[in-house]
């Protein structure tokens, strides 16, 4: 029996906008096994960031979590008081964001920022805090630790800021680390270093990672499980290798196929149309207007998540039967 660190059950999150209530997440369910890396893949409007914020209970008005359970080590986070949640946030579950420099306080040195976290969650101060701070910065492979402690965020490169961010997240030895597009704003060489660091930290510290990204390459590098989101729903969930070999959902298959590579003649396969506005979701399966395999049933009924292979679930009436794209071409 797999042990799950995080279990999201039937999560409903909505936002009040001037045009009405937008139901961003409608019954999202996702399980994250302990010590593993789950990648949540989606494009804009898929609801992946809202999912991360819901887990951290950082959804503020005009957003609201309507219903559902988020079980972290058996405790439902949605039932905790704000005070109790504050002890979870940063301590048990930590999050890295997309723009590293903007996530750090520009007027505080690195040392001050680490100390603040250590004091708040671990009650560490003085020399003990400094030792831990040094240890953390070394753990994220930052050079010249003492000089770095005295630096301000604007003096550091994007990659270094992101590593400081990771150090801050690790300060209290959390069990779960959520990375929301953590490498999207970074150069590809820097991204490689951060991905390797995350992989290493997972192995050394037994961290569980939830990696949110639109970049399938990042998923291939880092994740053992892939969850594909579309229009606020989970449409496919599979072990990474299986997913890349033979995705079931037409959207996932097309997503894998439309990545450019050296091919000077043919046009790229495309997904026609645009991601649906969450206010006016299509009826039935949300992907049907753009789906090359859609049939009348797809417009009328909403498919539920079904397990087609062990560990491989898909939400589709007519999933791909053979691998819809061939990895060998790339």
């Amino acid at each position: 029996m797999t042990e799950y660190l995080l279990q999201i059950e039937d999560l409903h999150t909505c936002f009040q906008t001037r045009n009405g209530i937008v139901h961003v997440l409608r019954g999202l369910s996702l399980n994250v096994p302990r010590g593993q890396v789950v990648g949540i893949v989606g494009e804009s409007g898929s609801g992946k960031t809202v999912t991360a914020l819901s887990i951290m209970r950082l959804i503020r008005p005009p957003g609201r979590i309507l219903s559902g359970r988020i079980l972290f080590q058996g405790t439902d986070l949605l039932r905790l008081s704000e005070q109790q949640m504050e002890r979870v946030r940063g301590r048990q579950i930590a999050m890295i964001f997309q723009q590293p420099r903007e996530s750090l306080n520009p007027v505080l040195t690195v040392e001050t920022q680490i100390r603040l976290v250590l004091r708040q969650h671990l009650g560490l101060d003085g020399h003990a805090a400094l030792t831990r701070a040094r240890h953390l910065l070394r753990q994220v492979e930052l050079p010249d630790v003492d000089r770095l402690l005295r630096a301000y965020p604007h003096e550091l490169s994007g990659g270094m800021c992101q590593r400081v961010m990771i150090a801050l997240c690790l300060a209290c030895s959390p069990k779960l680390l959520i990375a929301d597009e953590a490498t999207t704003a970074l150069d590809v060489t820097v991204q490689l270093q951060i991905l390797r660091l995350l992989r290493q930290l997972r192995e050394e510290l037994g961290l569980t990672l939830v990696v949110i990204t639109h970049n399938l390459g990042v998923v291939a590098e880092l994740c053992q499980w892939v969850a594909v989101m579309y229009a606020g729903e989970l449409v496919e969930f599979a072990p990474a290798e299986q997913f890349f070999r033979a995705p079931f959902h037409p959207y996932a298959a097309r997503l894998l196929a439309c990545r450019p590579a050296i091919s000077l003649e043919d046009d790229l396969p495309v997904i026609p149309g645009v991601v649906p506005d969450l206010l006016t979701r299509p009826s039935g399966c949300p992907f049907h207007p753009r789906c090359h395999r859609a049939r009348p049933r797809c417009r009328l009924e909403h498919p539920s998540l079904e397990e087609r292979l062990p560990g491989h679930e898909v939400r589709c009436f007519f999933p791909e039967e053979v691998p819809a794209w061939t990895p060998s071409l790339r």
Partner: protein
Amino acid sequence: MDALLEVSGLSKHYIVSGGLLRRHILRAVDGVSFTVSSGETLGVVGESGSGKSTLGRCLLRLEEPSEGVVKYRGIDITGLPDSSLRPLRRHLQMVFQDPADSLNPRMTVGTAVLEPILLHGLARGVAARRRVIELFELVGLSEEHVARYPHQLSGGQQQRVAIARALASNPQFVVLDEPTSALDVSVQAQLLNLLRALQRRLGLSYLFISHDLSVVSYMARRVVVLYLGRVVEEGPTRALFDDPKHPYTRTLLSAVPANTPWEQRHRIIPRGEPASPLARPAGCPFSPRCPWAVQRCHEEPQALQPVGPDRQVACWRSIEGKIVWTRPEA
């Protein structure tokens, strides 16, 4: 194939004050030369700090080059006064990276596309409006979009408007500065197909700037690799990516995330942190991070030398065949 655009020795430097009485010279672009032929796409690859965006802007004289010559159809446009330059602007257009930012939020998109037509006297009144609708349809939008404001369109649609605007003056040369970096993968595929179709249909020449190697490899027949403002390698796309001759190109290629979880890729880890254009080393700009650098590399600036019939590389060790790619020197 005749040369549409010839760039020689283009440089752009900024004077940055580093505190009291200290002035640094930031060489964003340093002695860049290349040619773009009629109907061709030249790819420009680089990470942040490579100067690729500055290069694009200098070509169109949106920023004034500090040194060097840019010739369009044999006419030197570098020194031209504003009044002579403006009529030439219709031939050289640009599509920017962030579509939302490149459109005036207070102008309907139709007006934005109409403007160049009126400015260059290409049509007036009803004929001009008809041309706007034609352009919209050319880029895959429809007449109903003409009266919309940018914020009412999706990112992909906004970028299509930007392309329509660039094409409104019937240019022959279009600089595409990371046109799809801000877009989702599926939208990117649509837009790349569109750009290629437009090129075939209208006989356009492109300068395609990107940090994304797979996108560049798909779009461009020839590629120029930039590092800290200098060209380090140039050649046909396929040859360059199959067998890169410059250590930086190799490093860049190796850093691209894998396509699948089971892909084994040999990773080259550059030493140290990404360099800043403010602190450029004396010799080869990549030498502080290059795994194969020796003393001579640190001291002697490298010029582009031919290697093969239509390739150039700025690395003496590579040209002399002294590098064993699988064995970085300690």
